[in-house]
């Protein structure tokens, strides 16, 4: 029979764990609201931007377009941008993104392609380090960033574009988690260079726009921004997903701790009762013996 004191200590420790997870859950809930608001505020821009881009891209014929749109003709070196959180304790959030990236990387490697990995967020880096550490070419640390801004995305995009211009890679993909709801986040893979707007629904092509300056000049101006915009919306989605994942993970942990406390308390009471009964038996049998 476990010692009473040991049980009591264990109950106290589980209780304090429950307090911590409860607090984390509430913090995550508050942050989630903010992250969701940010994601929603960024949506109109991204939607319009993509709609215009899709329209412009649709007008470009054949291989004559800018490199960012049609690619540089090669498909050998792939850059995977893996975006994860800076912190753990958020359920399978980081793991799922890392897993998706790992599967994609291994598939590309099996096809004989060169894979380079840029990590955004510490957790993904840690998760991929052992297996794919030799493919890392850089890391973006966002742990100091309190509120995600467009500037963060613009910096990452600038880095990507410089590398692309230098011919360091041919295709770039981002890995992040789309926010469906608090309990469901889907790890997503999206190609950003060469830009792919096939998933964007183009409205009716009835209006013919005048382009000023020319169509090509606009496209050349907007494509780098499209990269930044896509990264920005991915970061926002990721932020909301992270908090959602953490919230539900901590909710589960809190509930689990509660169940455990109940169980331990019952065990504790039973043991106490057994000890009392034992003592009584000893006293009674002692008295009888006299």
């Amino acid at each position, binding site marked *: 029979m476990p010692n009473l004191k040991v049980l009591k200590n264990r109950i106290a420790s589980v209780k304090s764990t429950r307090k911590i997870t409860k607090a984390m859950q509430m913090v995550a809930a508050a942050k989630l609201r903010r992250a969701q608001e940010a994601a929603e505020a*960024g949506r*109109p*821009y991204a939607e319009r931007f993509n709609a215009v881009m899709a329209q412009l891209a649709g007008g470009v014929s054949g291989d004559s377009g800018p490199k960012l749109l049609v690619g540089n003709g090669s498909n050998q070196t792939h850059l995977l941008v893996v975006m994860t959180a800076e912190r753990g304790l958020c359920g399978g959030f980081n793991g799922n993104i890392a897993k998706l990236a790992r599967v994609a990387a291994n598939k590309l490697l099996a096809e004989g392609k060169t894979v380079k990995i840029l990590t955004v967020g510490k957790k993904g880096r840690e998760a991929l380090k052992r297996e794919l550490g030799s493919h890392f070419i850089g890391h973006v640390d966002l742990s100091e960033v309190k509120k995600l801004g467009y500037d963060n995305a613009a910096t990452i995009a600038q880095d990507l574009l410089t590398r692309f211009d230098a011919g360091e890679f041919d295709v770039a993909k981002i890995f992040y988690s789309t926010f469906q709801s608090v309990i469901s986040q889907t790890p997503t893979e999206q190609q950003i260079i060469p830009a792919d707007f096939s998933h964007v629904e183009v409205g009716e092509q009835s*209006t013919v726009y005048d382009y000023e300056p020319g169509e090509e000049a*606009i496209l050349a101006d*907007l494509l780098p921004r499209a990269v930044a915009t896509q990264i920005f919306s991915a970061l926002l989605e990721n932020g909301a997903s992270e908090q959602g994942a953490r919230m539900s993970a901590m909710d589960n942990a809190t509930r689990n701790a509660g169940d455990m406390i109940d169980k331990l308390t019952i065990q504790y009471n039973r043991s106490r009762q057994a000890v009392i009964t034992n003592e009584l038996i000893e006293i009674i049998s002692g008295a009888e013996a006299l």
Partner: protein
Amino acid sequence: MAEMMQFDLVSPERRLTSVQASEVQIPGAEGDFTAMALHAPVITTLRPGVLKVVTASGTEEYLVTGGFAEVGAAGTSVLAERAFAKADVTPELLEDLIKEANLQRDASNTDMAAKYADDLVAASTQISG
């Protein structure tokens, strides 16, 4: 009363305004122009400048640093890289923006960066003047 059209000004981080406007003065890359209802559909890039929106309740001014504008049958939308309402534009903010642009110009030494810096200076005098 002029015919009204839908006008939206959005930046990557938020939607700054969404109103019915009678006319919008847009600092296009190839020159300023005014969009009114039933304007021919145009997509243009922006240079740093001052965006003026005339609504039924008065005129609003915004400082934009770049981006593009889409004038279509459904209305006009401006997707600005960075946009600030006139009330939010402080001398410090302008100073920061100009400093940043100058750094960029010195670093890249291209005509585009130089033009950006010049346009920004012009825009800042216009909005604070």
